[in-house]
Structure formats: C-alpha cells, structure tokens
C-alpha cells in the first residue's frame, strides 16, 4: 500500500468529492471551475515534488516513474486548460452544463487517464480506460436539451464500448499466451522464448486497436468528427488533448517495453499513414470549425504515430514534447471557438469571419494556434514536428516522413482558411454577435495557451531535455 505512488490521483479524487459537496452547499449558484483547476494544480505540484522517484505500489499494479510523471503533467496541462475553458463558459445559471457535475466528471476522467500511464498491469489499464471513458460519455451528452449532444454521447458510448471489447479480448489473449497480466511478466515470458507467438501477437494487436479507437487513429476514427461537432465545446477541448496524451503514453510503454519484441510496427505504420491522409484530406472540406479540428486531430495522431513507429528513446521523448505543445495549441483553439460560440451560438467559418476587426486579441490567438497546428515556426507545432520527424529519419522512416510533410503542406490550406476568414473575409451578422462575448475567463486560458505555444517553439531546449530525461528510463 504505497500511497505515494497514487498521491496525485488521491488529490484529484478529493477534488471531485469536494466539488460535489460544494455543489449541494452553494445550491449550484457558484462557478466551481476555479476549484477544479486548483485541485489539478495541486495534483501537478504533487507530481513535480516526486518527479524523480520511482514508486511501486499495490503489489506492482501501479508504477509511478518519471515516464508516468511526464505524461501526468501533460494530461494535467490539457485538463487544466480545458477546465479554465469550461469555467469561462459557465453562464451563471443554476442549471448550467458546466456546473459541479461537469467538473467532477472531468476530474474522475483524469484519474482514469493517470491510471493508464502509471498502470503496470493490464487489469489496471482496463479499469483506467473505463474510468477515463465513462465520464467522457456523460460529458459529451451533458447538454441534454441539445439533440446533437445526446447523439454525440450515444455515438461515443457505442464506439467506446466497442473499443473496450477489443481491449478486453486482447488482454484475454495475452493472458492466455503468457499467463500474466503484469507488464514485466509478459515481457519476460516472451523474452524467455516465443512459445505462443501468434496468440500474443493477436492480443497485442487487439490491445493496440482498442487504443487506436481512443485516440481516433484511422480507420478507427469515424466517431470523432460527430462527437466533436455535437458535444459542448469546452468538453471537446478536454477530449482533444488529455485522453490522447494518456492513451499515447500507454501505447509508448507497451510498444517500447512490454511488446518490444512483437512486430507491431507495421500496423502502427499503416494507421499513421492513413491518419495523416484521411485527417488532412477530409479536413479540407469542413466549414464547421469543430469538425475541422476533429479531422485535424486525426491528422495529428498520424504525426504522433510516426514517432511511435520510429520506436526508440529519442522518438519517445519527441512524442512527449510534441504532446505538450499539442495540448496547449489544440485546447487553445477550442477555447477561442468556445468564446465565439458562447456569443454567437455557431461554430462555422462564417461565425469567425472578420473577427480580426472586432476582437483582434482573440483573433490573433486563434491565428497563432492555427499556425502552430500547421507547424510554422516559431511555435510549438513546428518544434514538435521537427523533433518527431528528425527522430523518425534517424530510424530510417524516410518514406513516412515525406508522406507526413506532404500532408502537412495540404493542411496549410485548411488551417490558413480559418486565418483568412478571421482577417480577410467581410464581417457577417454572426461575427457581430461574437464580438459581444465576455472574455474575462477566456483571456486567462488563451494567454496561457499562447505563451506555452510560443515558449515551446522559441526555447524548446529545457522541455526537450525534460522529455528525454523522463523517457530514457523507459528502456
């Protein structure tokens, strides 16, 4: 019973209980988002304080090492920014979607994400995935008066259940092949001799597929655009970064250590290849910003998987670095959309047309995030792609990297179309509405996301070093 190993999760759980009590006490009239943000911050501090420790807990079921701590911090970054976005979206009504329930669910989901990256046992992974997913289904459907939101929640739930099925089946096969759920034992039994290779391989592939569903890698992506478009925007801001970071963290651990000897590169290669293609090409014809960013997210999963395919300590650290920047820029982009939506009730390109003239600061922030997602220096998006592709070339993945940059060039078109709409299109009635949005809360999250996006682009050295120091231990 080593509670140090799960201290941050304890803090998050305490936070969610606290919020529920507060909700009853204040009768839902207080904006509780700030408290949630505070608890995430506290959990982050707990992680930082024990960053260098290796804590094994609960009979080796969880292992809190530097790798886990790095990914916890990335998850908290995404969660923190999304929490601030939801806080700003609170409209002051007692029945607000972004009341105590929302933030409690958010914290619960983050506990699940943490379990994915600290879990050292497939059972913990499965539990973590369920704790992660169930709150997300509820959050997606949270806006119960909106048909789209309910549809989004239902779709997300169905595909999520499907993914859990894959994962469970995979776990069963792996157990059948190796007789163990523990990562280390699975790795060792394989090293001792490939006595039941096909079974183990099938199990590994199924587990991988389960998580490809979660990160929306093609061809397991179909849910993402509908869910992104239907769910409330602050929820989507949360979907966009944190769960992906957790799932990718777990995939890294599995592919680099437990399943290191399995030939999983081929399937990762293909999912990466397809994700970059489908994400970028389908994004070209989207007029709804949330759908556009959904496809953009699929494309970015493709880039991350390039690093996973490269399969080495350098590539792993570049993935960590990439996800830090991605958390800031994608959540930042959704925060702008949330601000626009709060006033105008629409999230199409038309609703941001001419925004630059009315609200130059918000427009500048959205432009920055678009440039960052495109991968134009000096932003985190460029530094991240640079690190990823550089490591991939080291592993000889020239073809995949060329594919990646070709589709980065394609992505220029749709990201810049947003910038074109902001600054170069004439204003519409919807923009006029958007200009009335109160932006006090958004200012904080936008400033924070913008600073991180620029900092990681201009001076990435310390963050690259942090990622590298954390991930070198993995091997």
């Amino acid at each position, binding site marked *: 019973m080593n509670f140090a190993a799960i201290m941050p999760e304890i803090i998050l759980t305490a936070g969610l209980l606290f919020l529920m009590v507060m909700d009853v006490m204040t009768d839902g009239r207080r904006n509780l988002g700030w408290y949630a943000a505070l608890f995430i911050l506290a959990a982050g501090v707990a992680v930082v304080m024990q960053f260098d420790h290796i804590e094994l807990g609960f009979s080796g079921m969880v292992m809190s090492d530097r790798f886990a701590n790095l990914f916890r911090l990335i998850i908290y970054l995404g969660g923190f920014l999304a929490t601030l976005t939801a806080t700003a979206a609170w409209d002051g009504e007692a029945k607000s979607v972004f009341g105590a329930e929302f933030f409690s669910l958010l914290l619960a989901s983050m506990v699940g994400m943490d379990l994915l990256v600290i879990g050292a046992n497939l059972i913990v992974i499965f539990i973590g995935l369920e704790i992660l997913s169930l709150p997300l289904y509820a959050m997606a459907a949270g806006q119960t008066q909106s048909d789209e939101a309910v549809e989004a929640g239902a779709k997300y739930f169905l595909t999520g259940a499907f993914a859990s099925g894959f994962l469970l089946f995979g776990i069963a096969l792996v157990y059948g092949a190796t007789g163990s759920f523990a990562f280390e034992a699975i790795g060792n039994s394989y090293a001792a001799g490939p006595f039941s290779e096909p079974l183990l391989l099938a199990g590994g592939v199924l587990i991988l597929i389960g998580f490809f569903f979660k990160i929306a890698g093609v061809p397991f992506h179909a849910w993402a655009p509908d869910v992104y478009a239907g769910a409330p925007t602050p929820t989507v801001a949360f979907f966009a970064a944190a769960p992906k970071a957790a799932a990718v963290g777990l995939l890294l651990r599995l592919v680099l250590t437990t399943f290191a000897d399995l030939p999983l590169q081929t399937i990762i290669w293909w999912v990466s290849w397809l994700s970059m293609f489908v994400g970028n090409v389908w994004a070209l014809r989207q007029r709804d910003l949330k759908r556009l960013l959904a496809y953009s997210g699929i494309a970015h999963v493709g880039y991350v998987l390039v690093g996973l395919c490269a399969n080495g300590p350098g590539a792993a650290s570049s993935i960590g670095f990439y996800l830090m920047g991605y958390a800031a820029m994608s959540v930042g982009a959704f925060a702008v959309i949330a601000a626009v939506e709060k006033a105008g009730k629409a999230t199409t390109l038309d609703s941001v047309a001419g925004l630059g003239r009315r609200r130059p600061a918000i427009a500048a922030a959205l432009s920055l995030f678009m440039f960052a997602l495109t991968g134009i220096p000096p932003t985190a998006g460029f530094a991240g792609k640079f690190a990823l592709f550089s490591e991939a070339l080291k592993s*000889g993945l020239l073809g995949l990297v060329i594919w990646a940059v070709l589709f980065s060039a394609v992505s220029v078109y749709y990201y810049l179309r947003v910038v074109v709409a902001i600054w*170069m299109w004439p204003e519409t009635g919807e923009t006029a509405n958007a200009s009335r949005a109160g932006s006090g809360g958004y200012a904080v999250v936008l400033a924070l996301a913008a600073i991180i996006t620029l900092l990681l682009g201009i001076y990435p050295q310390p963050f690259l070093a942090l990622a590298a120091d954390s991930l070198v231990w993995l091997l």
Partner: protein
Amino acid sequence: MGILSVLIFFPVLCGVALLVWPGERHAQIRGFATVASAVEFIVSLWLWFGFVPGGGFQFVESLDWISRYGIGYRVGVDGISLLLVLLTTLLTVIAVVSSYSAIQTGRKGYYASLLFLETGVIGAFLATDVFLFYVFWEVMLIPMYFLIGVWGGQRRIYATVKFVLYTMAGSLLMLVAILWTYQYSGGFSGHGTFNLLDWYGLGIPASAQRWLFAAFALAFAIKVPMFPFHTWLPDAHVEAPAAGSVMLAGVLLKLGAYGFLRFAIPLFPQGFEYFADTLWILSVIGIVYGAIMTLIQEDIKSLIAYSSVSHLGFVMLGIMALNLVGATGSLLQQINHGISTGALFLLVGMIYERRHTRKIADYGGIFAVVPVFSIAFLIVALSSIGLPGTNGFVGEFLILLGAFNARPIFATISTVGVILAAGYMLWLVRRVFFGPVVHAVNETIRDLTRRELATLIPLLALIFWIGIYPRPFLDRIGPDLESWLKRVRTVEMIKAPAWDRPTPFVPPEAVLSRAAGKTPGDGGTP
C-alpha cells in the same frame, strides 16, 4: 549582443511595440514605423563600412540554442549576404514611406507586418545555422501572407493562399532534406549539428546528394521563381499592395537565388552536377518565356512580374555558370533587380493611387501631364533593360560573359531575353507615356509629390552609381565568391557536353581581376 542580432531583432521588437501602441493617429503610427526602419537602415550601414572583403563570415555570433539537436543561434555576414541585407533595409524604409497614403485601414498591422517581414528576411540572409535559416525562411511567409491577403486587391485571398501553399509545399520537402542531412552529420546516432560550416565538409555520398539537392532546389526554385514554378508570382504581385510588391520582388525572390548560392549548390555539388542541365534549360526557358509573356499582359504590374521571371532567369544563369564572372554578375544582378523592379513597382503604385487602374490601355500620352514621373519611369525602365551606364548593364553583361564561358549555346539563346526586354519595356513606355492623351481623366493627374520623389531618389542614385562605378560593390562580393567557387568545385569540375562546350579564350576572370588589381585567380573555363 552583436550588431547582427540588433539588425535581426530590432524590427520585430518595433513591430510588437507598434501593435500594442495605444494611439490610433496615423501620423504617430507611420512616424514610428518610419523611424524604426530608418534606424535599422542606418545601423545596417555599419556593415558596409566595417566589412572586410574576403574575410569570410564576419560579425559572427554563436550561441547555444537547442543543444540537444546541435542547433545554435549562429549568424554571420559575408560578401554573398552583405549587399542583400543592405538592400533589404533600404527597401523596407522605402516601402514604409511609400505607403503613407496608399494604406487606409489597419495601419498598425500593416506597418508591423512590414517590420516583421524585415526581421524574417534579414534573419534568413544572416543565418549560418541551417535550422535557424529554416525558421526565418518560414517565418517571413506569415507577414507577407497578411500583406497580400489583408491589404491587397480584388483577388487577394486567392493570390495569398496560392503564394503560401506553393512556398510551403516546396519548403517542407526541404525540411526533410535538412533533417536527413542533420542525421547524416551525426552518423544517424542523434549527435549531429546544424552548423552550416560543418555541413560544407560532410562529404555526402553522391546518390544521396541527388535527392537532397532536388529537395532544396525545389524550395528555392519556387521562391526564385524558376519556370515552371512561377505561376504564383504574377498573381501575388498583381494583388499585393505596392509596398508588398516592392518587398516581394526586391528581397523575397532573392532568397531563392541566395539559397542556391549558400545552400543547395555548395552543400550538394554532385547533386547539382546531376541536375545542372535541367536547371540550365529551365533558366533559359524562364528567360525567354517570361519575356514573351510580358508582351501579352494588359496590366502593368503583371507585365513587370513576368519581366521578373525573365530577369531572375538571368540571375540563375550566372550562378550556374560556376565561374567568377557569372557568379559576381548574378549577385550584382540580384541587387540590381531589387533596385529596378522595386522602383518600377513603386512607380506603378504611385500612378495607381492617382487613377485606380493599372491597365495599360487606360493610360497613354501622360508624359506631358506628369513629366517628372515619366522621366523617373523611363530611367528605371532603361536600367531594367540594361542600358550601358545603368546598373542593369553591368549585371547582365557579367552574367552573359560568364554564361558564354560555360555553355555558349544556352547563353546565346538567352540573349534573346535581352532583346525582348528592350522590346517590351520600351513598348510599355510608348503605350503609357507617349502619343496623344487618349482618356480625358488622365489630363489632371498630379505629378510626383516630394515624399514620393524622396522614395525614388535613393534608387535612382543607386542605378547610376552601380552603372557607372560598380567597383565598391564588386570588391565586396568578389573575394567571397572566389572561395565559394573553390568550395563548389572541389569535387569535380562540371563538364559541359560536347555539343555545348566553350572554345577557350582569355578567361574573363583574368580581365576582371586585372581590373581589380589582382593576379588572375582560378580559371573560368571548365
């Protein structure tokens, strides 16, 4: 903090200051931008006087930046970049001053974009770290994108998106080549470097050099632009505001040619050798095609844009000759093109402000109405043609001399471009300025104001200075080009095929270096 860092970062800081400046008065905004760009220009003059010809990279600064990846903040100036930097700072001042009355909306963003652009361009010229170069190379797209897209003409969005897509598509493949070379420099173990000077000595195998050169060359060829990658240029020029065109033609295009000089050819000489014939052919096609296309243009700006395609073909010709005369001429011609075409776009912008049309057919016979404007236009047009006594003559003459010395047949074909240039420019002048005044509205056009004249005078002065006494310029660029040639030709002499081989005669290098008071250097005949 050395002078080069000041040159790079002063404009961007001023641009940011301008954006957060609380005042909205136009006089304040344009005054601030003018002072900022003027200070930048005066500081850059220090390079001109403090520069030691032949001293390699000077004013060098080197700091660790991302040491994990062997990336440093490394900058330096040599004979190849010196004049281009000065051209940039001069043209920025002129661009700012020329925009006083042309830009009516969003002035803060406009002037800030010009200053950001200056930072990007100067940074790209000064970087001696390939990563740093790439960063500036990409960064400069963004202000140009806004300049065209926000303050441009009717089809500005189409033009600006096309401009960015073209440039990005090329440069992303270059990024792959850069990353690969980085990994090669570290033996694929992750301890490579991005230091350009180290890259020169890598000795990359010839098979890899081919695709690496192709990737670099594509990015630069789009920027130059070489035929058939030029189609973005006329659109961008026609739609850009006048000052945007000045910066685009004056300095942005130079980055393409500069990229060949600094990166593509010396890094991958064998790759260049492999593609040399293709590039020669494309350059010659560009020269002739650009010149022919000007003949059917109805818009003055797109006429000048196509003439740029033709002129930059000459610039490429001089580089590919791989001899001192050609390279010197090419570099000088880059400056000349910046001056002449920059001035032409300025003049078109001025007349556009008055009549709000750029159609050639809308003018005619305005020489009598606006004599000062017409004389200025005539001088610039003649320098663009390459009349002896103007800067254009010196550059084109040296280029053709070098080209004849390397590939006589290609050089002969490209002289067609010179003849056509005289044709289309003088025809343009005749249609716009001479004959009777066809449209009554043209009888009341105002002549140049003092401010407009002030923006033109430095350019006119340079046209004659370089045309009559180019020595100070040639002295500064010559020695570094000699060492450039040594680097490029270390591997193997580029051999022209039998059907296009020059007959040996006194190498023009000897003539040139005798004129400069030096002993003959390495021969130009391959």
